[in-house]
């Protein structure tokens, strides 16, 4: 099993319901801008410190309807570029959910995500579908991701996965 299929341990960044793609990737963040620059504007309207303070390996936690709005793929792309390694939400907007997984970030539906507090240390096991809150000692249930999707995620997302699978010599 590759490293990426193992549980992800990190600090939780907690947001509420209806975080939309305009908040995650505001239009000015990608108009004539490279993603490396644009990602600094991720969630600036909600938490101006987020982009600057989020650390490598942190876990993004949200309420209902995470990612509502447009189908822009910058939304999960920015989260990944900023260092987020897993996304938990009570529920996702469907296109964002797919985009997140296809961009190589595990996205887990976790009905009990509301029990996680900002800054809690959490350990997410996408294959088992569990979220251990190391700070409170609680274990929460999430919907597990199947192994083949985790392989795609481990490869770096759908396109990287296809490249590896279909054109191994390239």
């Amino acid at each position: 099993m590759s490293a990426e299929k193992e549980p992800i341990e990190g600090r939780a960044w907690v947001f509420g319901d209806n975080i939309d793609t305009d908040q995650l990737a505001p239009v000015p963040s990608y108009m004539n801008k490279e993603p490396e620059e644009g990602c600094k504007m991720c969630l600036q309207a909600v938490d101006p410190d987020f982009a600057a303070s989020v650390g490598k390996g942190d876990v993004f936690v949200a309420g209902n309807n995470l990612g509502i709005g447009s189908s822009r793929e910058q939304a999960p792309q920015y989260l990944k570029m900023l260092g987020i390694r897993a996304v938990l939400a009570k529920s996702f907007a469907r296109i964002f959910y797919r985009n997140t997984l296809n961009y190589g970030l595990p996205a887990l539906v976790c009905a009990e995500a509301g029990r996680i507090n900002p800054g809690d240390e959490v350990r997410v096991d996408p294959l088992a579908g569990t979220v251990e809150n190391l700070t409170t000692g609680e274990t929460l249930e999430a919907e597990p991701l199947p192994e083949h999707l985790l392989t795609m995620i481990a490869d770096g997302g759908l396109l990287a996965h296809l490249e590896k699978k279909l054109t191994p010599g390239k």
Partner: protein
Amino acid sequence: MLPPTPMTLSEKIIARAAGKDSVKPGGIVTCAVDLAMMHDSSGPRRAGKMLDQLGVAPWDTSKIVIVTDHYVNDPDPGSVKTQEITRQWVADKKIGNFYPEQGICHVVLPEKGHLKPGMFCVGADSHSTTGGAFGAFMIGVGATEMTGVLATGEIWVRVPETLRVSVSGTLSDGVAAKDLILKLCGDIGIMGANYMVVEYGGAAVRAMSVDERMTLTNMAAELGAKTGIIAADETTAEMLAAAGAGDVDINAWQGDEDAPVARTIDIDGPVLGPQVAAPTSPENAAEVAEHAGMSLGQAYIGACTGAKLEDLRMAARVVRGRKIAANTRFFVAPASILIHEAAAVDGTLKILEDAGATILPTGCGGCIGLGPARLDEDMTGISTTNRNFVGRAGPESSKLYLASAYTVAAAAITGEITDPRELLARGVGK
């Protein structure tokens, strides 16, 4: 042996495509794709390009259908280039199922006999949900995902929960499927069916033509749904046979009555009245009376949602023997060439033209603010399309109401939002 688990129609199709006996909502499975549809905007120029970058060939050209409808009849150099790229890619990859400028993809697909009950299909367009009107499971995907499908013939899906919408009785005269779906948008909102499949049924849906059913599945997208679906019946089989789809097995593709669903909504068909959705969201739907008298600069009958033959006939019934209002321009863009031809043969187009309608070539056109039906600065329009978000059908200062073909036609005649039943009740030309 355990008795077979009852499943909804969608679950049965997904299970079949995934090679499993059964699937449950929330589970993630990989499905073999029976058909992949792309248009000029999402297809060769985006998904095709990514596939070429990967350096692989399409998995099965017989299962790929390409339609040009978005940037057609548009002199803009970017649009012209897009058509060139599309034609070139189709020729290079030897895609046989290519329909250039013959109509809007969601309408052309069934018209040419490509859809059948029980199929698992994907389309690189958010309104690919329309295909569910034929008892197929059809979802919209982005260009990156389509690249994956083109390369492998497979896609992963999270099995959706089902929202069952049951409509009793029949809709009253002057009320259409569009009113029903707008009412749902208003009642549950544009995220109301997030990730679910909306399964429509009940006597009023059974009584609907295929054209009307397509309006319901088309706008499942406006409920946030993964897709919409309507189990096939004799009406479906008849239409598909005429379209050359070959043998259609309707009995094999029915959901189990006792399959668990996440939510059920019952609607009383006969009491439903005409609806309009105010700017800037389909969920701003209300009874037509609430906005009656709102003055309009344009009435547009077009799009995959609202310019099928039956929509054109509804409009003709309203405008017959009347003239459009001086303050309102009236455009009709049939959803396909075949619809245009049928409406010419049965006299529908003549009635619309006599009333003062300008008939436009088929294509997405006004729905995305292209061509003559693009709204002007500060203009307020009404249309049979499916979305009225800021800036979709014209400049950001323009405003758009959404309604049925009856209501849009009535607005063309009076120049303001009007209950079409008033005109229908007065009789021809009065």
